[in-house]
């Protein structure tokens, strides 16, 4: 029996103070490359500093604060996690099970998988 897919939420659905890690993005390769270069890479963990609520949201990524427009944030899928700040989330860990199905958005990175 296949394991349940881990829950994935658009970044816009996270609340202030939530910790999550990136689990994919429905974006063009060009946009994904920009996000990767800014440090928002697959499975990197971040803290929500300002929840979206229809407007832009702010996340803290290590020592960097990034502001994301709502249009962009809703296309970034995340997996909520309980890992401590700046820790690494291995694939599947800290993820609650879900019954969600649907197409899997591509990861932000397809080649470079080293994560902290």
């Amino acid at each position, binding site marked *: 029996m296949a394991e349940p897919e881990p829950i994935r939420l658009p970044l816009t659905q996270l609340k202030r103070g939530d910790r999550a890690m990136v689990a994919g993005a429905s*974006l063009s390769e060009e946009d994904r490359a*920009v996000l*990767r270069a800014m*440090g928002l890479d697959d499975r990197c963990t971040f803290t929500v500093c*300002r929840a979206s609520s229809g407007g*832009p949201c*702010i996340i803290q990524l290590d020592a960097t604060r*990034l*502001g994301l427009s709502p249009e962009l944030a809703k296309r970034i899928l995340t997996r909520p996690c309980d890992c401590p700040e700046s820790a690494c989330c291995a694939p599947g860990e800290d993820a609650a099970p879900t019954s969600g199905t649907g197409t899997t958005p591509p990861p932000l990175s397809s080649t470079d998988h080293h994560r902290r």
Partner: protein
Amino acid sequence: MTIAAPGARVPAPPPSRVAMVGNPNVGKTSLFNRMCGVRAKTANFAGSTVEARVGTCASGGAELEVVDLPGVYAIDLELPESRLCRDCLAGRLAGCMPDALLVVIDATNMQRGLRLFRSVATSGRPVAVALTMTDLARARGLSVDAQRLSVALGVPCAIANGREGTGIEPLVAAIHAAREVPPTVVAASLRPQWSDETIATSIGGPNTLGTDHDRLTDRLDAAFTHPILGGVVFLAAMALMFFAIFRLAEIPMTLIEDGFAWLGATLAAALPEGALTSLLVDGVIGGVAGTVVFLPQICLLFFLLALLEDTGYLARAAFVMDRIMCRFGLPGQAFVPLLSSHACALPGIMSARLIPDPQDRLATILVAPFMSCSARVGVYVLLVTLLFPQSGLLAGLAFAGCYALGALAALVTAAIFRRTILRGKSRPMVLELPPYRLPDLRAALLSTYDRALVFLKNAGTVILAICVVMWWISAYPRAETPAAAVALEARASEPSTAPDEADALRAEAETISARAQQEQSFAGRIGGAMQPLFSPLGLDDRLTVAVMTSFLAREVFRSTVTVLVGQGDSEDDAKVADELAQATRADGTRLFDAPTSAGLLVFYVLAMQCLPTLAVTRRETGSWKWAALQFGWMSAVAYLLAWLTRILVIALGGGG
């Protein structure tokens, strides 16, 4: 400060030109300013809308040319700044072939910096590393060991602080010590764990990856990016900034005006009367003065913007405004250039460089001149007074309406352009929000100095050439002095004429002569020929000439119209308005009736009537094509809406 040059490599001469590469907000420009000071200039490269700064550093004995490349997150992105860096690294930029590269890395964000180092090191050029923000790293409990980092990376590393000016000499020594990166280091850097291992060996402390908690930043961000409070703070900051610009610039602007007036008068008195004197006094000095007078406003604007940007606030403000601006296809950053254009479109267009996306930047540049600049104020006052001579309230509302109409036209035009000719995806709005900090005064002053030089260079070249051409078409062919003017001069010279009466007669003679010159000149003839085009707006040939000459610079409308229609220019607005209100057309109807005045007011709000602005648009976009589009679109919109306004006022019973 620590320098290390591990391992003897192939001997090579010390580099004479180094290119600085780094992520945005790592303190790269502060370092550059410390290294080069005022010996730097902004360099634009052919085919690129992104600029780099080039300067000379005399520290460390030998002269070193330093190229400050724009901040990039990665050099392989399809973004203008990344392309510029790639071209520079590959030696494809004419006159900018670096002998060595200086990678500037923020010690609080090593992971990202190392990623950039890895891609830069593969270029095969000698590399040195500058570690910045080490004070911030220490404050967060991190210890930074440049020696160990140097060993791990295989290139010389130095800790430097551009804000405080510390570590500059060791940094220059590190650049001189830079040698080609051996392939083993490049190969090692490709291993997945390489950056983690490098950080682990060179950065120590309780939290080696920085901190996620900064309560003050959290609170400030909560306020500055709040949908309502953030907007209020932004409007207050902008109101304060513009109050400062208008208030503080007043005195130097008056001094510049007086200085040019004195220079013109001195030259006119010293040189024999003739074409050359007229060219120098009216064409060169008069024309350049009309542009250079805005220099204090431009300097203040860029100085205050640099301070605001340095505090970290501007990124938050752009974020707040993005909610509104994105509805019109513009990014949040476009608000600053558009607001700046209320002082003058020239600095507004120049400040559009804050916008990272080229399509967004272009759209902003194209619509910025719609915003009501200070040169329009005199025209608004005159036409609003003519339109509502009895009601101060209505006049005030109409005046405010001009500003609103200009802003609305800018936003609607942006929305149209972004859905048509500038269609295409904008860069996703993702901004790094830099830490809040006290602004660096020295960096702000140097940046202002740099902008002022660019502006003056423009005023001294393109704008000067335009002024000379415009002087020529207004001054030639020379008209003979009309008989009426000669008679008045003769009467004024009679001994029996009282001094006051003689002055009045001479002034009247001058007005008649100026009117004859305006009508006879090429500009006047062009105006006459264009009259049929403007007759639907209710303009006769005199008003058409006034409108046509305004295409050089709109502020000349008042002086031209008072010469052609009234009794000559005067400081007294009410007196000028009274005179113009009495003016009639050939058929005896009022020239400035309500439909004509309203249509003309709308025309002046929307028309592109500033050649220096077109010159700056060309410069910033790199093509006359965009300047031509700006001119054509604004003129067409102005004409159409002025005509519709006239029709509407007539339909509402406003006469005509």
